[in-house]
């Protein structure tokens, strides 16, 4: 029983050091998993696991999750839980589609920012200014947004060519980058099926063909968010209101301003996630197109321990499973079971080596279950793959809670003048 506690204790003094070491460690882990996937591909013949097409689809699926997750990151770092991300994403999608129809792609992107920001402002006004419960506000925003988007879609898109009461016309796409010759060479290399090298080539091939500028923007925004939040005075203030608003106020930080700003930013990011759906993922707006992606974004952020790098890994993982499922890769999905089994068993051995025998055994047991599942079946139902993001998040919350560090005042209502 005392084992996890001791670990938690150690994390205290060591944290600053281990935080610095984290990116490298995570890169090694990602590289290791990549190699494992490559090995599994060769062993099982599930070639689509790392094909350029699958990886391109995975990136495309990961971007809206990433953007929604970033929205969650900004808001929750300032201490405001935002389950209205889903609604903000819908409004972003609608605004993006409407302005693209009227004035082109650039206006569309700006429109999604505007609509996202407006929806974020609603959440900010209710939670920050009025001090309403954040969950309640989020639920209400999701209800309003779904209705409002459908209502406005009917008002705006009915009668347009290719549009209708529930969907926008087909929209032009933002510019994308293709590096032709390099891409061809990489595809050739990828076709060889070599261990790791071909997989790496596929990844690069996925990145060198038809790479949307919006995709690039999304990844840049992850880095920029991390830099602002952790490397600037502004970010320090924003995080401080999520950790201890009364301490911040006692030092002259305007708590309401930073919370308000963070929540509006949250809406903007979710809105950008929405515009990505209408401009890059699909041909245009249609009702219900987010399908819970806002929640998956939230899940990715929690999975990633309220950090930009972590949420990127979470979004990548969730995007990847979605892509594989949507491509209908029966063998590939089945092969993923083996990957999960091996990862869990390695993790279990690591935990046991570190002294957490009980947790190691639990992890190992789950790993064995996945292994048996792999060995005794031929395919995985698509629904189960769909559950992966949610299950993964629940497992992380249930079994790695000690390692998670959410902002201390997350979800709490703060009233001005409460310092001291």
């Amino acid at each position, binding site marked *: 029983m*005392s084992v996890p*506690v*001791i670990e938690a*204790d150690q994390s*205290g*003094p060591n*944290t*600053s050091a281990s935080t610095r070491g984290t990116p490298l460690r995570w890169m090694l882990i990602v590289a290791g998993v990549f190699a494992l996937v490559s090995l599994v591909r060769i062993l099982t013949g599930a070639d689509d696991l790392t094909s350029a097409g699958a990886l391109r689809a995975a990136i495309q699926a990961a971007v809206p999750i990433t953007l929604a997750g970033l929205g969650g990151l900004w808001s929750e770092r300032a201490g405001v839980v935002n389950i209205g991300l889903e609604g903000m994403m819908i409004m972003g999608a609608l605004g993006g589609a409407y302005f693209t129809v009227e004035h082109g792609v650039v206006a569309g992107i700006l429109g999604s920012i505007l609509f996202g920001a407006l929806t974020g402002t609603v959440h900010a006004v209710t939670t920050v200014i009025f001090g309403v419960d954040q969950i309640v506000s989020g639920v209400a925003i999701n209800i309003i947004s779904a209705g409002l988007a459908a209502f406005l879609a009917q008002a705006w898109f009915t009668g347009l060519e290719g549009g209708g009461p529930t969907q926008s016309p087909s929209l032009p796409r933002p510019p994308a980058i293709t590096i032709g010759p390099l891409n061809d060479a990489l595809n050739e290399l990828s076709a060889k099926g070599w261990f790791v090298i071909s997989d790496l080539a596929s990844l690069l091939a996925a990145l060198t063909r038809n790479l949307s500028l919006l995709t690039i923007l999304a990844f840049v925004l992850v880095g920029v968010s991390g830099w602002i939040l952790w*490397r*600037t*005075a502004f970010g*320090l*203030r924003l*995080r*401080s209101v999520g*950790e*201890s608003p*009364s*301490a*911040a*106020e*006692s*030092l*002259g*930080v305007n708590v309401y301003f930073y919370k308000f700003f963070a929540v509006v930013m949250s809406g903007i990011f979710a809105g950008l996630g929405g515009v990505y759906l209408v401009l890059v993922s699909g041909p245009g707006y249609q009702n219900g197109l987010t399908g819970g992606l806002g929640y998956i974004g939230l899940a990715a952020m929690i999975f990633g321990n309220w950090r930009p790098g972590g949420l990127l890994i979470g979004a990548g993982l969730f995007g990847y499973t979605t892509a594989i499922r949507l491509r209908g890769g029966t063998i590939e999905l089945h092969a993923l079971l083996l990957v999960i089994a091996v990862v869990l068993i390695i993790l279990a051995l690591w935990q046991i080596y570190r002294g957490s025998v009980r947790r190691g055994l639990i992890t190992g047991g789950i790993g064995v279950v996945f292994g048996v599942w792999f060995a005794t079946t031929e395919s995985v139902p698509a629904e189960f793959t769909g559950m992966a993001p949610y299950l993964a998040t629940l497992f992380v919350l249930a079994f790695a809670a000690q390692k998670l*560090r959410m*902002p*201390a005042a997350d979800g709490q209502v703060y009233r001005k*003048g409460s*310092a*001291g």
Partner: protein
Amino acid sequence: MSTVLKKQDVPGGDVAVRVEGIGKRFPGVIANHDVTFDIRSGTIHAIVGENGAGKSTLMKILYGVQPPDSGTIELNGVPTKLKSPSDAIAAGVGMVFQHFQLADNLTVLENVVLGDERRHGIGNKARARIRELSAAYGFGLDPDELVQSLGVGKRQRVEILKVLYRGARIIILDEPTAVLVPQEVDALFANLRGLRDEGHTIVFISHKLDEVRSIADEITVIRRGTTVATVDPATVTSRQLAELMVGSELPSPSTEESTVTDRVTLSLENVSVADVSGREVLSGIDLTVHAGEVLGIAGVEGNGQTELVEAIIGMLKLSSGTITLYTTAPQDKSGNGAGGSADGPAREGARLAHDMTNLSTRRRRELGIGVIPEDRHRHGVLLDSPLWENRILGFQTRRPCGSGGWISRGGASRDSVRIIEEYDVRTPGIATTARALSGGNQQKFIVGREMSGDPSLLIAAHPTRGVDVGAQAAIWDHIRRARREGLAVVLISADLDELIGLSDTIKVLLRGRLVGTFDPQQVTSEQLGTAMTGAGGAE
């Protein structure tokens, strides 16, 4: 009014802080009115007053957290309007709050530079400056350490560092010693004297008179929201200060002749409790309380008092030991524990022993334990519920509030009326929410409730903390009456005079252990204080 004390010359120069005619009201209450005093530059100036006299409100006004309704503040001769803490910081005022204002998940550096990032940035320059300050004052702080991993003493140093980092010349400390152990108090005082000698002006708020007299150059006394005198610590006695604080009437806790019986009511044997990290917060506690006895537990706060209460009422699990409650039969129908021999109606001396070690809090309370909790807002009342519902709290299973899974609204209401009358709870009625009552009236209601249902044991943790003088006297009376009626009482208090005045026996709790037993008839505050700090022990 007692002796008028002559103000004497004190070290220090010009007036750093001049407060004139400050008033502040909240709905229904005047927190401050006509507060007027001067603080000289380069001195340590103490502000003392009873709990609730308006000290903290005044300090929040001085730091710009709350605006005053009337009056003026001059800082270094300049009239200043403080609209927010930023204004105060800009004017060179820093504040160390009683409840530390620190973000646990941030590093020392981040906590210190927050809000003042322009001074040295948030990077290496700031880090170097923090190291420099930390070394200069012997704080021993690592800028990159997470505040979460710091102890109380170090946290306070981070708070002081925050103030120094901003170059504050006027430093306000609100009850800085409340959470410190004696060694830490000494270190803090040394730091404060050092700061004063460098020319800082220190405003020191406290109600611990001995401390105040040892550290302050001047003392201003606040009573009922207003300043009543400024005195010289060298010539004033604690007694005189106390009289200034409460006016001339000084209630005194004192017991009459002993009512201690030989009937054991509560016994703890070898009780130990570990916290989440496995550290023992209570170790090998053995104690016995008899019917009609008040057992006082003395100790510096944070030495296991809270845990002792929670262990007895079952909110904390024991890591070892047993807790037994003896009641007069038949107290409890289900007849838990020994003494099942059906010897008819209750007789004096027919005692039932209940091994409570593994019982739930509810079962323990049903056996007849009343609790006056340390933190009444958190543990004693439902602030936004009406009084009659608060009557039910803790008595859900017992008449007249409930029986057999049902709640009796009528019974609870009627009994609330009784409590309000018997215990002089000043309230418009039983439908008033607990929040609307003053602290003293809330506490009287709690005392009345916990005395209901014929308890065998009363646990009173800081029963008069934060209540006015009148309520304090009433609560002391109720405890004395309970003792006369044969209740066993465990009294935990930081107020040594309260302990000495009410207890039949006093035990001292130090670092989770009982380190001494004293006879209150003979012991002095000084002797107890020595035992509480671990400097000596007695048996």
